[in-house]
């Protein structure tokens, strides 16, 4: 469904991503892992269009999307969350999710001027909030939520775009074990509905539990690709992680 071919990206003199190719099959759950600074988030930003690659090509559903800006990729069916949570903090939870329906709005403009709130997608937005366990807090300000729930709200907001491919940048970061469990269930639910998932993650439990295919990056370069079991057993991966830990 999504394939990246020989993608490279440098910032100043730093080559953040070098010659990375990966292919995410439709309706699969894939994970992108690697030690700190491996280029995982950069890769996700390249896939979502926040950055454009210096070299390489991207295709989605068989057609090229190289060079497409982020907003245009959403219309193709690609949604994402951010490593550093980016909610609309001053807006209510419901408003956050409603904003996510932007590309599906089809009401003629004059109706907005005369009728105002059409109530379209309100029901669906509430369902999404309930899905991530925030049904009771729809009217609260997003910025007032505890950290873990902010992550879940961001997921609900991204789901409002009705993605075919949903990319999550370290969704478990900063969550307590109970929240990680809840997140895991939700990811499984999302995958069951037929949405393809690509998860950038540090939390190995989560990766091992949901992913069918794992891409490992190290120092911006592809290190290994395989099933979670293969990745866990691979000496190069273990070395990269342990080496990273010793260095840190």
């Amino acid at each position, binding site marked *: 469904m999504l394939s990246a071919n020989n993608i490279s990206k440098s910032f100043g003199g730093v080559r953040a991503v070098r010659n990375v190719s990966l292919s995410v099959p439709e309706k699969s759950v894939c994970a992108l892992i690697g030690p700190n600074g491996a280029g995982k988030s950069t890769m996700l930003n390249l896939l*979502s269009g*926040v950055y454009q690659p210096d070299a390489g090509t991207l295709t989605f559903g068989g057609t090229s999307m190289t060079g497409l*800006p*982020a*907003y*245009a990729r*959403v*219309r193709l069916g690609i*949604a*994402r969350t*951010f490593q550093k949570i*980016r*909610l*609309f*903090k*001053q*807006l209510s939870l419901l*408003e956050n999710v*409603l*904003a*996510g*329906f*932007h*590309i599906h*709005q089809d*009401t003629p*403009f004059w*109706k*907005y*001027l*005369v*009728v*105002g*709130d*059409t109530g*379209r*997608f309100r029901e669906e937005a509430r369902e999404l909030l309930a899905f991530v366990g925030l049904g009771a807090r729809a009217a609260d300000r997003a910025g007032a939520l505890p950290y873990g729930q902010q992550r879940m709200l961001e997921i609900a*907001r*991204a789901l*409002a*775009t009705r993605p075919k491919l949903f990319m999550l940048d370290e969704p478990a970061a900063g969550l307590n074990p109970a929240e990680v469990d809840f997140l895991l269930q939700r990811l499984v639910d999302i995958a069951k509905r037929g949405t393809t998932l690509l998860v950038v993650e540090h939390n190995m439990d989560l990766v091992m539990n949901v992913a069918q295919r794992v891409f490992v990056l190290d120092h911006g370069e592809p290190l290994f690709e395989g099933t979670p079991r293969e990745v866990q057993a691979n000496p190069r991966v273990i070395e990269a992680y342990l080496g990273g830990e010793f260095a840190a």
Partner: protein
Amino acid sequence: MRRAAFFGIAIALVAAAPWLLHTPYWRGILVICAMNVLLALSLNLVMGYTGQLNLGQSAFFGIGAYVSTILVKTYHWNFWLASLAAVAFAGVVGLALAAFAVRLRGHYLAIASLGFAVITYQVLVNWEKVTEGVRGIYGILPPVGSTVGLFYLIAGIGVLVYWLMDNLVRSPVGDTLRAIREDEVSAASLGVRSYVWKAFAFSIGAGVAGLAGVFYPGFVGTLVPDAFNIVESFTMLAMVIVGGMGTMIGPVVGAVVLTFLPELLRGFGELRLMVYGIALTLVVLFMPGGIVQLVKRK
């Protein structure tokens, strides 16, 4: 229901105002107040809802005034047709400014838009063949003879604009504009082309400011560039902030307060500017949400 009641009260207040403040002087202030409400509403859409610090609003006010007046005086257009053209022209210029503005943020946008206001002012001063420069254009007639009639006209349009804008910000368009204000990268991740929506807000804001402008010359009777000095942009800014930006009623309250406050402070002479400045600073420091914040907080 609550909205219907709200608009009922608003209309009743508008209807009663010229009879509560019935001297010619105060009725004149009411006309100014109605224009200021339109101006504050116009800036609020851009600044309060879309989060774009635009200091060029005085230019659109001036464009509305000059374009409509020149069309009427020089080309003998009908006032309403001329007004329509002036509003459209202001909207198009707003779009043109937006073409530059969408690339800028925060302070840079503020400086660029302020620069635009300065340029527009200079054009009004120096393009004498068309604008008569500082000599001014004289003998401009209002669209309605009486001050009360003029007030009802402008205030009526104000209520209409308020209603339309209130609908707009409650609609999904409002969600989109607020999303851009809060976080553009996030908005883009939801498929929002923020430059399109910013340009939209700029253009509508410019058109509404232009609409306020078409009534100004007839009310004063003469038209000189000084009325559209960049200071006006800051006055509008103050109205929006003091009232409470990003709410619908806030800028209206701000416009009313800041129209009447200087009148009530006339006894202080030039000191009133200082009082005005101190009042503004206090609001920003202690009521960042403006006057409406005091009322609305649960």
